[in-house]
């Protein structure tokens, strides 16, 4: 008997602790404030973009609170976000999601930054049936798990570079060639995001009958891709697609110049993160860079007005931004989705709110938002911008284009 006493004591302690926690767990709506929760990367390797996302959330919260708040049941509520720093580590992110839901009683979640963190947190929100609107996890594997409480405002990663293939096909046809004559060289980092991007390119290449002549996987600590580019130089493909985060973009831009690569169409992700226009002024000319959002797009919606107006407001609110990262814009869009869904649900019941979220169909400064059954946004395309004279101009898809695409690209080596 004696040796069991500590166990009893421990159990009693755990119970009382549990009760204590339950006591504080009523924070979804405090007075006239609706509490949203988010684990976000404020330190660690994702901190740059994590902070962009946080700024996006905060700007939308501020804007909504200033313009009438969220009206539920005839009463106007303010929004507030509780943040925890996940230190850019998935395990920590999952822990913090538990804490937000269990301890802080948060019933409405905003996503973290990056697909990796979202992948870690989604199972937690799913377990507690807490709806989460995320803006920074693009991996398509997030939307093949059958999650019911996960909604994403951004385009999924397999769409990132796929649009460059249809552009190449259009150009080929305009020049009297067939789409199937286009030869593609691919260099993708061996990580989940870039491999998703690759899968999208592969699908479209197959659909269009294009031939893939190089298919290199880039290592995680990539700092040299001259061997791949030497192959490109020898095989002269019509289209080169590269994805390897900002290190891939920086390495590619530097070595495209060094090896004088003359491929007529070159598309890559993370041009802006790698600051290619500033660092590789000549070599970056004519590069095609996909983006979730650009301030020059003619999207328009409540709360912020047009994309251009959002851009101005953001720059006026947060010092130090020369251009607004799309990571911030989509974070703001996620908050707008919450407002819209809560008002339509006209209730704080998580199930009703979830159903309202899944029925979302709205126009925002960030683009149209409509969720598929899997939870990803199918109403907004990825846009392709070309670096022309040092600035990013939207060139595809045609309906959003502000400039004609320059073909062949005219790098100033």
């Amino acid at each position: 008997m004696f040796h069991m006493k500590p166990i009893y004591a421990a159990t009693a302690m755990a119970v009382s602790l549990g009760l204590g926690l339950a006591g504080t767990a009523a924070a979804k709506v405090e007075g006239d404030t609706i509490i949203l929760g988010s684990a976000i990367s404020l330190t660690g390797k994702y901190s740059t973009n994590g902070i962009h996302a946080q700024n996006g959330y905060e700007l939308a919260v501020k804007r909504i609170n200033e313009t009438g708040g969220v009206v539920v049941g005839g009463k106007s509520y303010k929004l507030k976000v509780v943040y925890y720093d996940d230190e850019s580590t998935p395990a920590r992110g999952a822990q913090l999601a538990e804490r937000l839901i269990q301890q802080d009683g948060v019933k409405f979640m905003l996503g973290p930054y990056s697909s990796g963190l979202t992948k870690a947190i989604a199972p937690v929100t799913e377990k507690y049936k807490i709806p989460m609107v995320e803006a920074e996890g693009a991996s398509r594997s997030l939307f093949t798990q059958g999650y019911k409480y996960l909604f994403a405002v951004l385009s999924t990663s397999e769409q990132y570079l796929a649009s460059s293939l249809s552009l190449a096909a259009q150009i080929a046809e305009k020049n009297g060639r067939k789409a199937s004559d286009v030869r593609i060289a691919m260099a993708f980092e061996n990580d989940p995001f870039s491999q998703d991007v690759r899968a999208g390119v592969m699908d479209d290449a197959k659909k269009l009958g294009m031939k893939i002549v190089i298919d290199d996987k880039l290592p995680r600590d990539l700092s040299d891709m001259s061997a791949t580019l030497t192959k490109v130089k020898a095989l002269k493909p019509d289209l080169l697609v590269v994805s390897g985060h900002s290190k891939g973009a920086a390495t590619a831009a530097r070595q495209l110049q060094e090896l004088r690569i003359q491929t007529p169409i070159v598309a890559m992700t993370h041009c802006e993160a790698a600051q290619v226009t500033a660092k590789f002024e000549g070599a970056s000319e004519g590069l095609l860079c996909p983006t979730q959002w650009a301030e020059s797009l003619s999207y328009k919606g409540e709360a912020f007005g047009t994309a251009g107006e959002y851009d101005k407001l953001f720059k006026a609110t947060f010092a130090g931004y020369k251009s607004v990262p799309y990571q911030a814009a989509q974070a703001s869009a996620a908050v707008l989705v919450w407002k819209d869904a809560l008002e339509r649900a006209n209730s704080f019941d998580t199930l009703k709110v979830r159903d309202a979220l899944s029925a979302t169909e709205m126009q925002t400064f960030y683009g149209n938002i409509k969720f598929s059954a899997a939870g990803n946004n199918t109403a907004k395309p990825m846009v392709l911008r070309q670096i022309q004279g040092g600035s990013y101009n939207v060139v595809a898809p045609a309906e959003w284009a502000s400039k004609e695409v320059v073909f062949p690209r005219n790098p100033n080596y």
Partner: protein
Amino acid sequence: MWDNISLLIIAPLLNVQLLLDGVLIGAIFALAAYGLALVWGVTNVKNLAQGDLVIMGGYIAYVFTTLGIHPILALPVAMVLMFGFGWLIYRLIISHVIERDLFTSLLATFGLALVIQQLLNLIFGPDVQIAESGFDILFLFGGQVTLAEIKLVALVLAGVLAAMIVFFMKTSRMGQAIRATAQNARAAKIMGINTDRVYAFTFAMNAAICGAAGVLISMIWVIQPFFGTSYSIRSFVIVTAAGLGNLPGVIVAGLGLGAAEQFSGFVLGAEFQQATVVGLLVLVLIIRQLQMRRQRRVVS
């Protein structure tokens, strides 16, 4: 794979391109590896933070470019700063583990590597950075082979540095003391050499060499806080292949490794470029083991 090999046969100039790219970068690998061999030989500490010291040098060059100063001028500054940093690290960490077993010093330098990575990440952020030299690009064989001038400049600078180090080791009192300590630390101590000071100087000199290599790397490739590890691995491969105290061997192994990376990247694909480094390490270890077995000795 066979397509790529046949490509090399059809267009032999591609071999020239790959060889040049590989050998020129290999010279910088050799520089960092020589520093590792020096510390290893003299203090018997296997420095797992070698690559991170290289990356630190790279960031010094990057800071220079942000200040509008040409990064090549960062070379002497980086060497001086890194020398001081190396001395500090010796006093703070290495001097406490130098007499301990292998495992303790490995753990200490591994910890040091993590701390350097995280500090760089805190200061400079996780994005990749470059130091732009602004040098031109040479066209050889009618433009079919291109060569960035900075790579040639780096080769020359690496060569000059290596020559200076050799000269220093051969002629100066400190150089002689270092060599004496490497041969037999106890005997050196009895002869009146302050071995602790020799160790500190050696580690500091290694940090300076790494700093110089980092400055050159940042002008040729890209740097990022977490890229150090791959340079550490390369240094270990080169030193293991060449053996300690074998400068010509280190140079040959360094150049060879650079070229091997380029060719495997071309033939097998970029994902195998760094795998080649590790693969070669395993191969070298097996060969060494067989050689030692023939001599009835155990590889220590």
